[in-house]
């Protein structure tokens, strides 16, 4: 992650995913950030779209302004740069529960066609094939935050951003439907990478390609 990358190279699918996620934070006041790629997207949003965006991490850091992408949600730089640092009970009971944080950026291991997230087990609960980390903060965050954006590798309720495209819930029955394709991706690719028979919106749109500003800012951020 620290190697300086070629700023001339074409964007990777992962970079496009991060850039598209960052765009979803334009004009928002506050964002709750889960572990991993959500953090990169939120920092990029502060660099390119929304310098006043309030970043909230479940470790209790509210208004964190990290210069580098933190590895954990409790890195020291988050506490050092935060407007305030609160305990875990206060974070969930006073800040997340009442809906004070506008958007939640969550990752997940699996998502189904109804946008249910799985981060518990794959296989039988008592004898799991794969034991995943567990729910963490996600259940109450998904309930408390008015808007939820899920970033998963393609392979809530409002928007799922993968490295291949964007899925949104069909207003009729809530099923996740492909509404946008990232540059260079074809529908067949997304179908193959989806574990159910994927519904495609009739007015399927194309994601606008990353701008030079977005791509340069992202690569500079990741190389820090």
């Amino acid at each position, binding site marked *: 992650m620290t190697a300086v990358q070629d700023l001339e190279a074409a964007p990777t699918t992962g970079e496009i995913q991060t850039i598209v996620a960052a765009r979803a934070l334009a004009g928002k006041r506050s964002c709750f950030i889960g572990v991993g790629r959500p953090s990169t997207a939120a920092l990029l949003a502060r660099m390119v779209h929304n310098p006043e965006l309030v970043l909230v991490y479940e470790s209790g850091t509210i208004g964190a302004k990290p210069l580098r992408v933190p590895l954990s949600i409790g890195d*020291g730089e988050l*506490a050092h740069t935060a407007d305030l640092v609160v305990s875990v009970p206060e974070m969930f009971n006073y800040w997340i529960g009442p809906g004070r944080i506008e958007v939640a950026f969550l990752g997940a291991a699996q998502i189904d066609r109804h946008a249910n997230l799985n981060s518990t087990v794959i296989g039988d609960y008592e004898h799991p094939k794969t034991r995943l980390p567990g729910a963490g903060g996600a259940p*109450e965050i998904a309930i408390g935050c008015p808007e939820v954006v899920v970033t998963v590798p393609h392979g809530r309720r409002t928007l799922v951003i993968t490295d291949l495209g964007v899925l949104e819930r069909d207003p009729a029955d809530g099923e996740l439907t492909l509404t946008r394709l990232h540059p260079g991706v074809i529908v067949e690719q997304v179908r193959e990478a989806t574990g159910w028979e994927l519904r495609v919106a009739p007015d399927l749109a194309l994601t606008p390609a990353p701008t030079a500003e977005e791509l340069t800012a992202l690569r500079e951020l990741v190389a820090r």
Partner: protein
Amino acid sequence: MAELVTLTEAVAGLVHDGDSVALEGFTHLIPFAAGHEILRQGRQNLELIRMTPDVLYDQMIGVGAARTLVFSYAGNPGVGSLHRIRDAVEHDWPRPVAVEEYSHAQMANRYAAGAAHLPCAVMRGDLHSDLIQRSGVDRVVCPFTGEALMAVPALNPDLAIIHAQEADRHGSVQLWGIPGVQKEAVLGAAHAMVTVERIVDQLEPRPGGTIIPGWVIDCVAVAPGGSRPSYAHDLSERDNDFYREWDRISRERELFTAWMDANVHDRAVTR
């Protein structure tokens, strides 16, 4: 007033086989030195409680010291799986471990109810989650509004162990930076033990600092660097390289066992 003792004495006096023990610290101030001393003294059959088991419980469960894990997020943050915990849950190695899992908000509220000596806490939660049948939570109806709410049982461990930046000579401690649920864990437990970076003549209250008076703590032990590879705000940095390296060390049973022998069991002084 808390007694000032050595780490060896603190663990010998307060940790017993079969106890329920919460070693808390949310990413920050994780009491690694105390956990390692528990392993060196060979404590067995523990019920280990932590919101985020982290590398410390990966080590303690990896050597088979626990019968039960109570938790809400068992991952290596930003890195991936905790391989030793997965091996114990998926393959019963080196011994089976029962899991009781909650969400972060549920665990935080369980600790808060424990600190208040209330039987339960009430919160809004996902009453339709699959996990509700697997954990000890239940529904209650608000007597004032009729709203359906979630009740979670209080958490009252036999012992809470935390790490803090400093203590005074009466065993009152102060920690600052990310406060996690340490105060709740100490006040909810039957006994409490604190390791600190240093002893000072007088605690100087810090902005955002948490002071826990010595009269709710059993004993305090000095353990400089006692939270490494986690960190103590203003005094040390989180060792992110080690957290990445742990992914490699912990993947294979043999490498893990050799690392634990060299770095925990054979060391009189903790890392």
